[in-house]
């Protein structure tokens, strides 16, 4: 029986695990979070909260008691499917290293475990791009997805006021991407007062995006309008961005600008992020080929390493639907159910279309679906492309590396990421450059540093007692 390890239990990972297990493989699905679902299908605390689960039977019991947030029927369908197929679901387990054909995972309490596989499916998703601006380190300035995640985990946005009654937090949502709508809506629904939504892209780009949505995914338009109604009457300003956050023990107000003039808005919480970047660290450590920060995959989601597949946002930001389709293809391919017949890389567009029509196999249908969804992904990436003037966001005394408190002034004259690390400690803190490195790749066009194990801070005792890691050291 083929042993398949899927890393990341978001939409891509769940779809991959289902397809692989249904094809007869023995599947282990890993995720560092306490719950499966990833950033997008994370459970909402509003609807009764499940415990972390160790197996699919437990997951089933848990799910029966749980309603999925955001009316996500699709999520529910996939969770149900996952329950049925008998995947070994291991949550609160973070992959920290990969050696040959096994991954090392760290559990919540810090101990390490080694899991061997024949095939690996990387579905590690994405994280937000945070661009440093003056005051972004103040408490209550967070990401957009960050605010969503914290809200779903139980962060109150209408806490009890010290003077009695309830204090509705005033929230400024800023940055870029369709997530801004969704998060403003969730925050408003939870009781926050949305001050405004500041989107960096232009009105023209947004209009093009709206037309594109109507063409490719009209249902998404309805969803978007619904979001806007929820945070009504807060304004949505295109071509606007957060220039500065001000406050004392926490943020109190923000300075917004449209490039021509600037103005101040009150804020108790700022949710600001500039889209998503693929989380490729594990893939990079394994040695999979990348291009422009995303993983290179072929028609069957195979990476440059034999037996290693990738699906979802790590192959390029494209949203949930594309991630699911990629996951399904990767799952089938890893389980050996998608044969070379589906690989039409050398065919012309016309030949490929005919071929796809004539061969009615599951994988070919999925490949055709993926092509349609990639059009939407391209539209998304074009519409919310970052304006070059955002490179001027940080001032010289703005902290870029939040772990080591390194300012932009200290970094801008460094030659590259590596010398910055050696001279200023930038990227040497516990986040290992996940926040600052992505920002610096955009701000100064720096190449990312080489990834080294462990991928996340690991207890030294646990690392020493883990034999796989020792073997790796011995080999070198």
């Amino acid at each position: 029986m083929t042993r398949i390890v899927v890393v990341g239990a978001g939409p891509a990972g769940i779809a991959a695990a289902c397809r692989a297990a249904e094809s007869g493989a023995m599947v282990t699905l890993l995720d560092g979070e306490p719950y499966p679902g990833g950033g997008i299908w994370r459970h909402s605390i509003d609807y009764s909260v499940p415990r972390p689960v160790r197996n699919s039977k437990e997951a089933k019991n848990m799910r029966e008691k749980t309603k999925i947030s955001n009316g996500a029927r699709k999520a529910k369908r996939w969770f149900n499917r996952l329950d049925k197929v008998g995947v070994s679901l291991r949550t609160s387990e973070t992959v920290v290293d990969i050696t040959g054909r096994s991954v090392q995972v760290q559990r919540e309490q810090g101990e390490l475990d080694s899991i061997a596989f024949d095939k690996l499916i990387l579905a590690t998703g994405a994280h937000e791009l945070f661009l440093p601006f003056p005051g972004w380190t103040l408490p209550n300035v967070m990401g957009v997805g960050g605010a969503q995640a914290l809200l779903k985990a139980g962060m109150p946005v209408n806490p009890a006021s010290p003077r009695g009654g309830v204090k509705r937090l005033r929230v400024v949502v800023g940055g870029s991407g369709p997530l801004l709508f969704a998060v403003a809506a969730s925050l408003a629904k939870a009781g926050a007062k949305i001050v405004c939504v500041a989107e960096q892209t232009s009105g023209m780009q947004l209009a093009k995006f709206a037309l594109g949505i109507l063409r490719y995914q009209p249902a998404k338009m309805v969803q978007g309008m619904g979001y806007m109604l929820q945070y009504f009457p807060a304004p949505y300003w295109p071509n606007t961005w957060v220039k500065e956050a001000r406050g004392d023990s926490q943020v109190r107000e923000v300075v917004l600008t449209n490039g021509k003039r600037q103005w101040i808005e009150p804020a108790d919480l700022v949710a600001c992020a500039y889209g998503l970047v693929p989380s490729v660290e594990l893939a990079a450590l394994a040695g999979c080929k990348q291009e422009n920060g995303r993983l290179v995959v072929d028609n069957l989601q195979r990476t440059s390493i034999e037996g290693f597949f990738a699906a979802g946002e790590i192959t390029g930001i494209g949203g949930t639907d594309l991630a699911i389709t990629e996951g399904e293809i990767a799952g089938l391919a890893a389980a050996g159910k998608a044969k070379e017949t589906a690989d039409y890389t050398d065919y012309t567009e016309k030949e490929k279309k005919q071929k796809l029509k004539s061969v009615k196999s599951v994988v070919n249908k999925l490949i055709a679906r993926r092509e349609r969804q990639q059009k939407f992904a391209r539209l998304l990436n074009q519409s919310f492309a970052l304006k070059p003037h955002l490179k001027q966001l940080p001032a010289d005394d703005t902290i870029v590396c939040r772990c080591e408190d390194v300012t932009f002034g200290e970094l801008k004259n460094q030659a590259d990421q590596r010398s910055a690390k050696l001279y200023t400690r930038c990227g040497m803190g516990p986040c290992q450059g996940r926040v600052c490195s992505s920002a610096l790749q955009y701000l100064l066009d720096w190449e990312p540093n080489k990834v080294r194990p462990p991928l996340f801070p690991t207890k030294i005792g646990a690392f020493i007692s883990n034999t796989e890691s020792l073997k790796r050291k011995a080999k070198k």
Partner: protein
Amino acid sequence: MMKKITVKVNDKSVVVPEGVTVAAAVYMAGETAFRKSVSGQLRSPVCGMGICYECRVQIDNQPHQLACRQLCREGMEIRTL
């Protein structure tokens, strides 16, 4: 009815629904600052998903625990800054 549990945030008892993260409990206790940075600045969570490490708090005398990734357990003692 959702089960409630009690945790302590900086010695203050907070009743939270079962299944919320430590980060949520810290916010419910009225705190906004989670840790002090290496140069002494106040910080709070940014990513909410376990990559930024700004949510680090002390849990049951263990320092540098990620508040966003751990769930509250009955009697847990959480300390910020």
